[in-house]
Structures are given as structure tokens and as C-alpha cells.
């Protein structure tokens, strides 16, 4: 009988805490168009798989009237569960409890579940919805943030870390997401900034709305802080499920293999790329033509769209694609594109995901703004990331590969394992027009008809050098292949690379230019 009574008491106790900030606060949360922290967790995880810990943790602050304040769960829900059967650790800040503000105990619940994730080698997902530091707790709140950042860093490259921004995430709080691998944002709901509109207006006199300063779209398109952008919370949760199914649970594993499906034959791969190197196309069509079931999960779709990155599958195994996108800025490399690709390459290398590079690029973006923004420093990140990576690295040159870009896009010289080129590839030190102007300057200037001579010399250069055979004759390209052979060759190359064993000199860590 006593046990029964105790069980009933436990259920009652749990029911109270599980209500979070109570009905009124929940109503407010719903009125803002937001789900509650608990609803989010339950919607993301497999039905019935969520198990909560530290439900009865309480804060210990005595100052500023906090002694009498009860904060259910201290404003954060933590636990474990599964996504499509894969175990994960998760926490969700509860905005209905004192605005989801972060106090020391709140932070310690988070660091505890992070430690657990790192020990158990499972992904850690954090749902952020918090007004920021709990000011009443003063330095305790700051200590809490710092302890989270430290664990984010320790776990980096060991387990995948995912941040979901479903509310405000301001001040110091933004740095935990920034340290994690993937940040998800939702239109009208996510807000991220270091200093908010009020401070900016007081100090600098600049007026700006929260949305324009650090809304979802801004981080997905302008800053590059966000990796996935959704129009609703449900769409966002679906994106997370897709991603989790594609990546391994830790750096000691490979992503789960699924039953392979052939690409849907939407478009003949031979017809996607215009033969005129000046004409654009959507390189994602090539990815769709190559990947299993024509599926591709693009990362950072809106930011630096001149390079495309993301995950697909080949023969059921996860692979990463890095592709120049001629549809935007002619597919040039610039500061943002280099930054975007470099971090992605490092993620893939840390988590055993082979990298397939599809190359069609005219060079680096010229401009004072680029030079002054540090395109040298940013561009170097990409060279570093490719050179450093020891996962299988395969490049297919689809069309143009000019100059520094040829080197940067996983060339043989940076350690590519397989270099393929389509027969229309132009691998040269620069575009034919530019090269002819320099090499044949004298002939062109001395000719009676300069334009005709220039045209003739450009044509000569194209015939002699703007092709894959010069590079192939030196062994820099392993094989010139027909577009229709590409998928089979990629499957084969990955098969051959299965036991790739590549080592780097022993070191504490490198010093990449970031």
C-alpha cells in the first residue's frame, strides 16, 4: 500500500514540474506561435522514447527575492531518447520558466547531459529558447555559460552537436550554438545577437528591429551562422531528423547505411551542363543525377550560394558533396564560400564522411571589398581543410578549373585520392582570354587587326590548353571520363577507398588560419 501511495505522490510531483511555468506562461508561449519545450522534444524524438533526468533540480540563489521563487526544472528539460532509433542526448530551455533564463543549476543540468553525450558517444541536441543570463544569479550565470562553451569545445569533432534556435538566444548564449556543428533557425521565431537593438540604439544611435538584426533569415543568408532555415518549427524538426539519419553518432563510427536506391532519371547528366563555359546551370542537378534516390540535404543553402555543400548517399553510404555553383557569381570562390566549404570539410573529416568535390569555377572573386575582407586568410582555410582531411577525397572536374581555384578545389596536389575530369573540362592557369592576352601580348599588339589576332590566339590557347589532357598527361588527372560513367566510378572509387589509411605527422594540433 505504501508503495502505491509513494507512486501516486511521485506522479503528482512530476505532473507539477512538467507543467513548467504554468498555464498562463504556456498560453503566452503559444500566443507567440511557439511550441513548449516539452512539445518540441516529444515531436522530435521517436514516440515514447524520451526519458527525462534532473526534473527535480532546484536553484540555490538566495539574493534578490529568489529564495522564495520556485523554478520548475530550473527552466530547462534534459534527457535522452531516440531519433529514427538512434540514441541521442537532448536539452530544451523552457521559456515559460522565468523566460528560460540561465542560472547555475540550469547550466549544470545542460553540462551534465553534455558530459553524458560525450561519454556515451551519441549526438547532443540543444534547443535554445532563453532570455539570457539570469541576472539575479550574477557570476553564477556567467560560470554556467563558460562551462557549456568548454564542453562544446571538448565534444567538437567527437560527437555531432546540434543547436536549434527556437526563441531568443542573445548575448553570451549565442556562443554555444556558434561552437556546435549545425545551427537550425526558424523564420520569425529565432533571434540571435550579441548586443540587441536597444543597446545598439543607445550606444550608436542605429535603429534596427530584432528580426533585421538577428532573425532567422539574416543568419541563414547574411552571417552564415545558421546551417538550416525553416518556415515552421515542425519543418525544422523534420530537417533535424533528416540530418541525424545522415551523420554518424560519433567520430568512431560511420553513418548508418541504408538500402541503396538508384538516382531518379529526371535529367540526363550529359544535358545538364552547357558546353559554353560562360553559360550557367544549377550544379545541384548534377548532384541529384549522382546521388542515391536523387536525394541531397543541402547545408547553408542561402549563404554563399556560389558554393554548394551537403550530404547525400552513394550505394547507401553517406557522402559529402562540395560543388561550385555557376548559377551564383559564376561559381567563384570568395571569403564566404571558402569559409563555408572549409568548415564543412573539417566536419566531414572529423566524422569519417568521404568528400566528393564537383568542380566548375572561374577563379576567385575580384574586388577591393574581397581583398580587404581577407580573402587571402579565408581562402587559405579551404586549402588547409582539404590538405588536412584524411577521409576519401574524390574530385570530378565538370567544366572549368582555373588558376588558384583549381588547386583549392581538392586537387591532386592537396592530396586528392581520385581525380576525374569530364571531356569538356578546361584545366588551365586562367581563362583562355586572359591567358592569350598575356602570353601573346606582343603578337596581338603588333597585328594589323588586333581583335582578329586576339581571337585567333584565344582559339589557339583553347585548343592547346583549355582541355583535360594537359593535366592528364602529367598524371594530375587520373582519368578523363564520360559523364554517364561518373556515378559508377564514384561508387567504385569509394569501394576502393574503404580501408584508406592516411596519416599526418604527430602534433598537438595544427594552426589553421581561422
Amino acid at each position, binding site marked *: 500500500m505504501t508503495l502505491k501511495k509513494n507512486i501516486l505522490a511521485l506522479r503528482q510531483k512530476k505532473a507539477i514540474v512538467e507543467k513548467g511555468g504554468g498555464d498562463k506562461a504556456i498560453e503566452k508561449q503559444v500566443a507567440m506561435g511557439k511550441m513548449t519545450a516539452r512539445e518540441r522534444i516529444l515531436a522530435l524524438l521517436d514516440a515514447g522514447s524520451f526519458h527525462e533526468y534532473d526534473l527535480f533540480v532546484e536553484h540555490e540563489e538566495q539574493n534578490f527575492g529568489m529564495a522564495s521563487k520556485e523554478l520548475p526544472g530550473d527552466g530547462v528539460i534534459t534527457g535522452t531518447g531516440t531519433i529514427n532509433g538512434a540514441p541521442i542526448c537532448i536539452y530544451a530551455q523552457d521559456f515559460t520558466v522565468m523566460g528560460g533564463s540561465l542560472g547555475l543549476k540550469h547550466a549544470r543540468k545542460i553540462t551534465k547531459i553534455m558530459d553524458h553525450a560525450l561519454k556515451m558517444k551519441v549526438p547532443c541536441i540543444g534547443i535554445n529558447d532563453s532570455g539570457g543570463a539570469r541576472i539575479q544569479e550574477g557570476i553564477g550565470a556567467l560560470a554556467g555559460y563558460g562551462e557549456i562553451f568548454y564542453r562544446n569545445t571538448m565534444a567538437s569533432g567527437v560527437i555531432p552537436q546540434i543547436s536549434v534556435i527556437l526563441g531568443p538566444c542573445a548575448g553570451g548564449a549565442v556562443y554555444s550554438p556558434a561552437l556546435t556543428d549545425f545551427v537550425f533557425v526558424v523564420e520569425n521565431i529565432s533571434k540571435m545577437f550579441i548586443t540587441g537593438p536597444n543597446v545598439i540604439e543607445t*550606444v*550608436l*544611435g*542605429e535603429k534596427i528591429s530584432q528580426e533585421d538584426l538577428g532573425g532567422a533569415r539574416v543568419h541563414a*543568408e*547574411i552571417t552564415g551562422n545558421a546551417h538550416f532555415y525553416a518556415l515552421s518549427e515542425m519543418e525544422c524538426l523534420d530537417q533535424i531528423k533528416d540530418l541525424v539519419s545522415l551523420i554518424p553518432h560519433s567520430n568512431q563510427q560511420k553513418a548508418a547505411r541504408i538500402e541503396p536506391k538508384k538516382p531518379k532519371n529526371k535529367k540526363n547528366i550529359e544535358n545538364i551542363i552547357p558546353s559554353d*563555359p*560562360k*553559360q*550557367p546551370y544549377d550544379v545541384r542537378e548534377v548532384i541529384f543525377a549522382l546521388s542515391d534516390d536523387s536525394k541531397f540535404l543541402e547545408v547553408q*543553402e*542561402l549563404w*554563399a*550560394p*556560389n558554393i554548394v555543400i551537403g550530404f547525400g548517399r552513394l550505394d547507401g553510404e553517406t557522402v559529402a558533396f562540395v560543388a561550385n555553383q*555557376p*548559377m*551564383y*557569381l*559564376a*561559381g*567563384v570562390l570568395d571569403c*564566404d564560400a571558402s569559409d563555408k566549404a572549409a568548415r564543412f570539410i573539417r566536419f566531414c573529416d572529423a566524422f569519417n564522411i568521404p568528400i566528393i568535390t564537383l568542380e566548375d569555377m*572561374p*577563379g576567385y*572573386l*575580384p*574586388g*577591393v*571589398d574581397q581583398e580587404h575582407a581577407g580573402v587571402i586568410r579565408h581562402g587559405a582555410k579551404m586549402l588547409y581543410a582539404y590538405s588536412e582531411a584524411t577521409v576519401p577525397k574524390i574530385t570530378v572536374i565538370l567544366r572549368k578549373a582555373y588558376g588558384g581555384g583549381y588547386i583549392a578545389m581538392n586537387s591532386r596536389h592537396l592530396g586528392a585520392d581520385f581525380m576525374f575530369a569530364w571531356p569538356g573540362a578546361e584545366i588551365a592557369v*586562367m*581563362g*583562355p*582570354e*586572359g591567358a592569350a*592576352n598575356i602570353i601573346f601580348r606582343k603578337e596581338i599588339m603588333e597585328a594589323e587587326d588586333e581583335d582578329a589576332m586576339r581571337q585567333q590566339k584565344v582559339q589557339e590557347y583553347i585548343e592547346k590548353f583549355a582541355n583535360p589532357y594537359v593535366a592528364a598527361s602529367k598524371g594530375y588527372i587520373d582519368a578523363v571520363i564520360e559523364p554517364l560513367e561518373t556515378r559508377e566510378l564514384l561508387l567504385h572509387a569509394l569501394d576502393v577507398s574503404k580501408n584508406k589509411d592516411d596519416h599526418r605527422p604527430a602534433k598537438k594540433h595544427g594552426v589553421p588560419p581561422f
Partner: protein
Amino acid sequence: MKKEAPEYVDFAVTARKYKTLLTKKYLNRKVWVDPNPFEIQSFIPGTILQISVKEGEVVEEGAPLLILEAMKMQNRIEMPFTAKIKKINVAIGERIPKDTLMIELEAVE
């Protein structure tokens, strides 16, 4: 991004022009303007606390021009070289954005 009907523009990378789309960020980039030494611009947004010169006055290099308060710092703006004050475009108490043309100078014969 998927729905927009592509209207490709000419985009020059070295000697060749490519048909492509431009990004918002590229279109909004700051175009470089050669700095004019006769124009004193604000390097930070802030408030004018004090103006120490008058229009028409010849001022020695290094002399204080004005105080621009920003981020709780009183920044003393000095004369970059000896010249005449041609025009003062700001007033005491005025709050100005970054890159505001505060004072125009004129060479002295």
C-alpha cells in the same frame, strides 16, 4: 531560392564575362572610394560633444577639431595637416552615423 525565375546577368571574372545570378550580399557590397584627405569623416557612429574650430580658420596640424563621443569614449579628432576649415557639417549635440562628412578642408596657399 528555388522558385525565382533566373534572370542571368553578365559578370566579369578576369577577362571573361559569365552569365550568372548575383547575391544580395554582393549587390550590397561597399564600393571602394579613394579617400579624400580634405574630408574629415566619422570613423564610428556617435555624438558631437565639442567643436574647437570655426569655418574660415586656418588650423595647424595636430590641433583638436572636435570631440566625437562613442562607446563611452571621448574621441579627440585632430587636424591631419595644416589647412583651412572650409565647412563644418555637424553641430554640438548632434548624433551622427559612421562615415558622416563632419568637416571639409581647403588647402592654404
